[in-house]
């Protein structure tokens, strides 16, 4: 009985597995192979080399990587601090108002990310909405608020808020109210409950939200391009220009492989620590 079911399960999964292999794994494999081709080549029929990885260090691409990872980390921390109170409210306090917030946040996703970022450019640029209103109301002059690292981080926070907010709210909703009450009844203060009960029990949601925000931020490009000007060049930007402007597929592939490996490692470590079934609601 069990064996038949198992076989039927595998058979049913086969079509999806094939599609995934063709459109998801195969391109990744091509990228991975290109990473070992000589710089500037356009085919896979060359002797493998590590030249591209040497260039990563020699030509300072690692600083782009560090900027990407650093800003992603900063954005993730800010997102967590900003989203936690809101997510707590959505999970435990707001009741039906939660639906309104969910709709509002989801609706923002209906507009393309680039267009929303352009909105911020118009708002923050010199002579834009912000400086215009400031001048009209207070007479104060203000320079452009664009083109700095904090603005890029703000852009990341703005773009990826839903990806932190919803997993976090889900995680907090998983904390049983009785357990919090019991901790309080046994003498725990609010701060103590936050540290000893809320955060550990909401950890699956926290990990998933942080991981999504971090991974998306680390691979993001539009924020640094539009809001950051050329203040810093991020990894995704380097990869794109290697493929397009630089016409150097192997270098672009090597950079992509490095980014994928680092993020993949991070995701594996983080997800090994949480029970995904718990988040998907299969337990409890």
């Amino acid at each position, binding site marked *: 009985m069990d064996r038949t079911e198992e076989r039927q399960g595998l058979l049913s999964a086969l079509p999806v597995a094939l599609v995934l292999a063709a459109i998801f794994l195969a391109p990744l494999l091509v990228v991975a192979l290109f990473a070992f081709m000589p710089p500037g080549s356009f085919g896979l029929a060359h002797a493998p080399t590590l030249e591209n990885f040497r260039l990563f260090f020699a030509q300072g691409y690692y600083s782009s990587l560090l900027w990407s990872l650093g800003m992603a980390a900063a954005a993730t921390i800010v997102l967590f601090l900003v989203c936690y109170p809101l997510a707590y409210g959505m999970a435990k306090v707001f009741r039906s108002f939660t639906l309104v917030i969910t709709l509002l946040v989801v609706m923002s996703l209906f507009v393309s990310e680039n267009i929303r970022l352009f909105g911020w450019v118009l708002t923050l640029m010199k002579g834009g909405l912000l400086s215009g209103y400031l001048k009209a109301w207070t007479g104060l002059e203000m320079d452009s608020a664009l083109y700095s690292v904090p603005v890029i981080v703000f852009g990341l926070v703005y773009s990826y808020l839903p990806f932190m907010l919803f997993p976090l709210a889900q995680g907090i909703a998983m904390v*049983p109210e*009785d*357990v919090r*009450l*019991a*901790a*309080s*009844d*046994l*003498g*725990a*203060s609010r701060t*103590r409950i936050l540290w*000893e*009960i809320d955060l*550990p*029990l909401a950890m699956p949601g926290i990990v998933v939200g942080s991981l999504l925000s971090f991974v998306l931020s680390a691979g993001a490009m539009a924020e640094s391009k539009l809001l950051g000007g050329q203040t810093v060049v991020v990894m995704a930007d380097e990869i794109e220009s290697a493929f397009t402007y630089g016409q150097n597929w192997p270098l672009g592939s090597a950079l992509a492989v490095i980014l994928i490996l680092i993020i993949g490692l991070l995701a594996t470590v983080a997800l090994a620590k949480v029970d995904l079934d718990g988040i998907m609601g299969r337990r409890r």
Partner: protein
Amino acid sequence: MAGDTVLRLRGVRKSFGAFTALAGIDLEITDGEFLTIVGPSGSGKTTLIRLLVGMEEPSAGEIHLRDRLINKVPANERPTCMVFQSLALFPHRTVGENIEFPMKLKGVSPDRRRERALELLALLHLPEAYYGKRVQACSGGEQQRVALARALAFDPEILFFDEPLSALDYRLRKVLEKELKDLHRRTGKTFVYITHSLEEAMVMSDRIAIMRGGAIVQVGTAEQIYTAPANAFVAEFMGEVNLFPVTGGDDGRLLCGDLEIRGHDERLRLASGGQGQLMVRPEFVRFLAPGEEADCRLQGRLANVFSLGSRLQYEIEAEGPRGERRLVTVEKLREERFAGAPNGPVTLGWRLADAHLIREA
């Protein structure tokens, strides 16, 4: 000190908007007693315990713990604690960490905490090896004991229980009821237990408080409440009962249509014209042999026999004073089986000393 009042409630009321959950509760809880608050769902018992524990504030009235007014003292600042219906163990912690939690909050040293946790494991008949076990790996009964140990580690003035046994199967519940009673005796703590199950209340408690519609209807020992219920609700809540509407005669004696009341008992008197109900429990009703006398007598017809395991229950159909159908329940032990023919005429009788008068219509 045993015998002192630990907790005193005076006119405690609780409303949620227009809904009154508690309509004036007066109750005194004695140090060291096992008090069970019983009531059907919606009777307000859960609201009451939330007030007692400090999760809600009363809308009116006073709650004194010893001599301290604690109406507004939040749960985490009260020297009492509760075992939750869901147990509310910390799922991410081991058994040992769960038990040590309240001691950790009080700043007890790790060595002392561990020592006490092991003592409590022993007290609750859990092996020492459970100290490092994950809570979720424990069975239902074991989790129950861990929750108790955690509550005892807090060393509360009063230990409250919110139906912690209701989710367990019957056999385990019976075992834990007795263990809880035993634990109460060994720790000497004040236990206040909330349940909808009267059986649980009878097995464990020193005193029982019966709630209905946001009020306490009667408080007393199981024996007092069983034999002398304050009203028909309590009488019926406490198990099978036969109630006969009676009125007071001119001389204060009871009048009850077709029911012959011969004897006379000072306890059973109603003012002339007063309304009441005469109560007799099924186990006190006898089948009379022809010509046999009894204080109360009733003619009827044997309608049904049910087996209750150790006992047999007989349903006798009689005619009320206005010709209405009236069912009387009789219970006999197996060895006292009544050998009457189905649908055959029977005469029932009981002593007035075994009856009780409820003074309300």
